[in-house]
């Protein structure tokens, strides 16, 4: 790590070789294919409960002795960390402020300056609607049409990216929920990056394949990515991406992974299991196979083989 930013190679090394390779004193467990989960209550939550759940999930995801040590391996004190929230569906199916703030506090305890932790979404309006009104001491802002004027091409996409991402953040976290998506199949961490491009509506053909993977592999996202965090206290098995209360269930987990692909494969598995329990066809039979997961794996972005994804309980 140099100048406060992981290089791609350094992160790849982390994903492949484990935290010990980064010399931070953490556990030597490899991060590739590893998804850390910890129990969390659905519904209203106290700050203490949220903090405990997030810390346990981070520990499980990183294999570090403490959550702070796990995060220190991924973030540097000089980083400006952008935490992209997914608040599209409003308060019912967005990450809860208590859980997000618990993560931000943990990040601060790991050495990132609070004023350099930015919670963001496409618009200020969406943030407010999801309950992100008082996030001090962290910043909380909408992209609100502030785009970098350079068109960036990545695979089949050509887009403007949020200036916040290209010019201000040195590290990124996708902080989403776990839900069914009418076209993409699964909306968890990777689909959330559609929120940092100006033209997401262009990229929903063919179950969003390869577009979800293409957005992520654009260097402005890929090289800054550190973690996916999912508040899956309540998850949704059908009818997404909008909030459909009748299609939710209390999964009761926070999930964290430094492998951006593995956590999607894990999410797919979890949604399909719930659909099966309720007598619904799997996503593949419902015409929304998240094929972009395999594409992302083929691009070398992470572990896409569900059989190789390890859920580690914290």
């Amino acid at each position: 790590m140099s100048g406060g930013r992981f290089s791609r190679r350094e992160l790849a090394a982390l994903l492949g070789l484990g935290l010990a390779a980064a010399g931070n004193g953490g556990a030597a467990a490899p991060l590739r294919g590893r998804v850390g989960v910890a129990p969390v209550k659905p519904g209203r939550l106290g700050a203490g409960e949220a903090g405990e759940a997030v810390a346990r999930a981070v520990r499980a995801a990183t294999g570090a002795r403490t959550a702070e040590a796990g995060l220190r391996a991924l973030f540097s004190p000089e980083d400006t960390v952008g935490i992209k929230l997914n608040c599209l569906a409003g308060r019912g199916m967005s990450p809860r402020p208590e859980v997000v703030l618990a993560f931000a506090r943990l990040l601060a305890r790991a050495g990132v300056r609070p004023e350099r932790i930015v919670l963001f979404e496409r618009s200020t309006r969406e943030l407010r609607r999801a309950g992100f009104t008082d996030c001090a001491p962290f910043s909380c802002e909408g992209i609100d049409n502030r785009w970098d004027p350079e068109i960036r091409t990545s695979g089949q996409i050509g887009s403007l990216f949020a200036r916040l991402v290209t010019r201000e953040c040195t590290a990124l976290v996708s902080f989403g929920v776990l839900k069914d998506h009418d076209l993409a199949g699964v909306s968890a961490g990777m689909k959330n990056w559609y929120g940092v491009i100006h033209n997401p509506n262009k990229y929903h053909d063919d179950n969003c394949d390869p577009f979800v993977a293409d957005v992520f592999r654009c260097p402005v996202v890929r090289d800054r990515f550190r973690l996916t965090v999912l508040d899956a206290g309540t998850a949704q098995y059908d009818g997404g991406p909008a909030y459909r209360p009748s299609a939710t269930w209390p999964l009761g987990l926070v999930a964290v992974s430094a492998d951006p692909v593995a956590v999607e494969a894990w999410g797919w598995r979890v949604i399909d299991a719930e659909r099966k329990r309720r007598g619904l066809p799997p996503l593949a039979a419902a015409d929304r196979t998240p094929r972009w997961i395999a594409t992302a794996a083929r691009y070398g972005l992470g572990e896409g083989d569900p059989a190789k994804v390890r859920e580690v309980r914290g």
Partner: protein
Amino acid sequence: MSGRRIDRREALRLAGGSWAAAAAAGSLVQLVPAAGEAYRPGQRVEGGPIEGIEASWWKRLDGNRVECGLCPRKCRVADRERGTCGARENRGGTYHSLVWGLACALHVDPVEKKPFFHVRPGSRALSYATAGCNVECKFCQNWEISQFRPEQVGSVWMPPDAMVMAARRAGAPLVAATYSEPVIFWEYVRDVSKAARKAGIGSLVVSNGSIQEKPLLEVLPLLEAYKVDLKSFRERFYREVVRGELRPVLDTLERIRKAGVWLEIVVLIVPTLNDSDAEIRDLARWVKASLGPDVPVHFSRFHPTYRLTNLPPTPVATLDRLWKLAKAEGLEFVYVGNVPGHPGESTDCPGCGARLIHRIGYRVLENRLKKGRCPDCGRVIPGVW
């Protein structure tokens, strides 16, 4: 881009400057908000949320999903999501157009700039557009409006009556839906065209032709002329460069012709991608056989832009070659665009070869047509004269 974004001063000038003054002057339309209107005509609208209107062509699917019935993409859209064009949104199981009345570009252009070469030569057309498009051409010249959502570009509230009034004020006998993609603001096109017709103003559409039959046939009778950008004659080009399909565009061309609405075709010639003799020969033969030899075809010069910046501008020699080839295939009105001074800018009589309309750039230097006929041999020259 040819359709510069609108600025407020220009919008005010076109819309009449002061609403009160317009009303006091006894203008045709009083520029005050109608009952239920959120904005005043000419008012700048920026950011969201946009209220929109219920769309006219869509159907409800299960679970609050909808299917758009406007263009061949037939987007299936979940609640709170938008179609590919970004201009239509599902709100609780009802599909909405977010762009009705919201002009993000508004200019007075010569009709030759559209280009229409057989429609009222030398006339002015009040040209308008909204944000959004249903395809994504890598060479789009208007990508700064076509590839954005309505809340991402500044727009001006121009309901149909205000548009007609602005056209009158500008001395324009025509209004033209153009710059981005009129199909995605089709309800607006329909309503502007209706208001224009009532006021004796002709309505033009400049489109990529990707539209379903029903909405096309509903609006065609309100139009004076239709220009279609035929981007290529190869499905592969449509798939890889346009992210669209060729077949539905060909269907649209046949339907416009069958309906008797004046039709012109533009083909942007992009070096190495759609400039082969074989492709243009196939295209010319299809136009002649399926539409008729008298449909004007314009070969237009490409300039590097948007996502195709690695290619040079089309060599004039290429345009020359294709111009001659298409004429040799029997097309009677073949033009060259974006090359000022090229002989292919002018209209010659296919009967006797006499020069009928002499143009340079978008200017008509001479128009010798007499009641739509060649003054030398008397041949009828088709068009809207």
